[in-house]
């Protein structure tokens, strides 16, 4: 087990700065997710920790030891790739033992280590098979097993569940959570799927254009987003942003939405100014026309079983409202 520290890290690809002066601490034993849209630099960051990409500026420490220029194999990290990268010509057991065999470990010790890994990940019946004879979920478990066999201080996962179907993804999420609970090893997990990040991680790092937007627990990211990007990125449909006007009042500020709605918020401000009011779809409720704060018509209703999403065209622009799935909603009639 070890903490990971990134100090003033930058990565430049042919003049393009994909990571810019980034500082991050991954505490010892934590499950940290690097979350962000495609091209935000999260994979580049993981690959720099792994040693697969050179760090252009800054330094990286694992367990307090500077590994900035260390060979990947000597960093005590193991990586699970998106494509699993299982060696197709080797059996599951040989895949699991590959790093041990390269390190010159005696065969008997290798077999013993492989048996321990197989037991932990329920791979016993698959040890003689080749990767082509395995299902997606089994391959994923073997890839984790191969990483586990190295006994690393830090596990790195590069979007490992993205090739699995929805059902298997849920199952593998549970298995990863259980694995982290059992091993208590530091894990860094790259994903663009916020559900994966929210369910697996105890710390999430939100990245955009090579910069950290916020670091926090899933609860903090959802309830106290640091900026508009985090607010819009976290949550299944993102946040509604409505144009409003805020004026100082007493200890806080009063935000006026249109002519009739006033909301008191704990904001510190000295003068009145236009603002954007962010409201999550689940914090809005549909009410009969003329009785609410925002009037509009439903342009589209998405029915998801337990819940429905109504896309309302209002004077403030498009507003998404999450409604109870038991209500029968129709497009057309006015609400609010």
């Amino acid at each position, binding site marked *: 087990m070890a903490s990971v520290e990134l100090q003033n890290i930058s990565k430049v690809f042919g003049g393009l700065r994909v990571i810019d002066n980034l500082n991050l601490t991954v505490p010892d034993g934590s499950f940290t997710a690097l979350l962000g849209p495609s091209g935000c630099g999260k994979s580049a960051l993981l690959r720099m920790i792994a040693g*697969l990409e050179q760090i252009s500026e800054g330094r990286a420490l694992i367990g307090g030891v500077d590994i900035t220029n260390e060979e990947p194999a000597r960093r005590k990290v193991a990586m699970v790739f998106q494509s699993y990268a299982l*060696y197709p010509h080797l059996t599951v057991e040989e895949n699991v033992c590959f790093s041990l065999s*390269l390190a010159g470990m005696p065969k008997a010790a290798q077999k013993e280590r492989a048996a321990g890994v197989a037991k932990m990940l329920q791979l016993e019946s698959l040890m003689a098979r080749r990767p082509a004879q395995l299902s997606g979920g089994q391959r994923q478990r073997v890839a984790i097993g191969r990483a586990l066999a190295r006994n690393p201080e830090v596990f790195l996962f590069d979007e490992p569940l993205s090739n699995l179907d929805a059902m298997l993804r849920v199952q593998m999420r549970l298995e990863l959570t259980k694995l982290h609970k059992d091993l208590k090893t530091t894990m860094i997990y790259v994903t663009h799927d916020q559900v994966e990040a929210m369910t697996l991680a105890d710390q999430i790092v939100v990245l955009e254009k090579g910069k950290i937007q916020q670091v926090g627990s899933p609860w903090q990211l959802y309830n106290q987003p640091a900026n508009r990007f985090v607010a819009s990125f976290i949550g299944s449909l993102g946040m509604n942003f409505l144009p409003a006007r805020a004026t100082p009042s007493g200890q806080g500020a009063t935000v006026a939405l249109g002519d009739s709605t006033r909301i008191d918020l704990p904001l510190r401000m000295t003068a009145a100014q236009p603002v954007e009011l962010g409201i999550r779809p689940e914090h809005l409720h549909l009410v009969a026309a003329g009785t609410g704060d925002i009037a509009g018509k439903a342009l589209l209703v998405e029915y998801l079983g337990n819940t429905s999403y109504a896309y309302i065209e209002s004077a403030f622009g498009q507003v998404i409202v999450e409604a109870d799935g038991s209500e029968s909603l129709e497009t057309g009639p006015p609400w609010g």
Partner: protein
Amino acid sequence: MTAISNPSARRINHAAGALTALNVLVAIFWAFPIYWVLVTTLKPEQDIVRPGIDLWPDRLTFDAYTYVLFNTQIGQWYLNSLVTAGSVTFAVVLMSAAAGYAISLLEFPGRKLLWWLILASFMVPIPALIVNHFVLMSQIKLLNTWAGVILPQLLAPVTVMIYKQFFDSVPKEFREAAVMDGATQMQLLFRLYLPMNWGITTALAIITFIGAWNQFLWPFLAVTTQDKMNVTVGITQVTDAFGVKYARDLASAVLAGLPVALVYLIFQRRVTQAIMLTVGIQG
């Protein structure tokens, strides 16, 4: 069972039948010389020169084979061919794999230049170099030795190109996973890239072996004594002071080609694959 009643289906059926018949005819036309050689080797010499065409020998005899096997140095020629063709195959595959790996995956100064040189060398026909090879081998005193026969045959830009192409197509995650597992460049080549492309290696090895076994011009020039000759050169020595002996000459040719024919029959699929790879590269 249903009878074909559709006229267009019947027409297609007739056309397919005619094509098959034509195929069989062409195959017979192609195979007849081989049949004729085999039949001739099994006839007594007097029957061969008798006027007329005997499609099947009146008297079967293995005299021509026993003569070639027991009165010439064919055993030594086989050994020479086996050693030189085997060495060429081993060295060509090993060097081409290493060169293909280096050009495909390693970063070093002059990599592109080296690649262009290999491409350029592919465009020079081997017979154009034969005088230079002869002079060089003569200067380093390797004429009439196995090494002298082997060394000029190690120029194999096509195999380097095929390996490079295949190594290029291996997803980089395999390499990265192995690097993280602690693999060195040699381990990457011999424990990952070569085994992952084993089919290509066997195909290239077989076709290189066949090519080296069938080599005639260079071994003919590089060797002057019978005990160092390859089987392809050695059979030219099966002559007789009292005229041409067709059965003996053809029996020696059959014996010379037999190992290659066997290799081809056993590894048919791989040879075809190798030819397609080579053609793909050349085309």
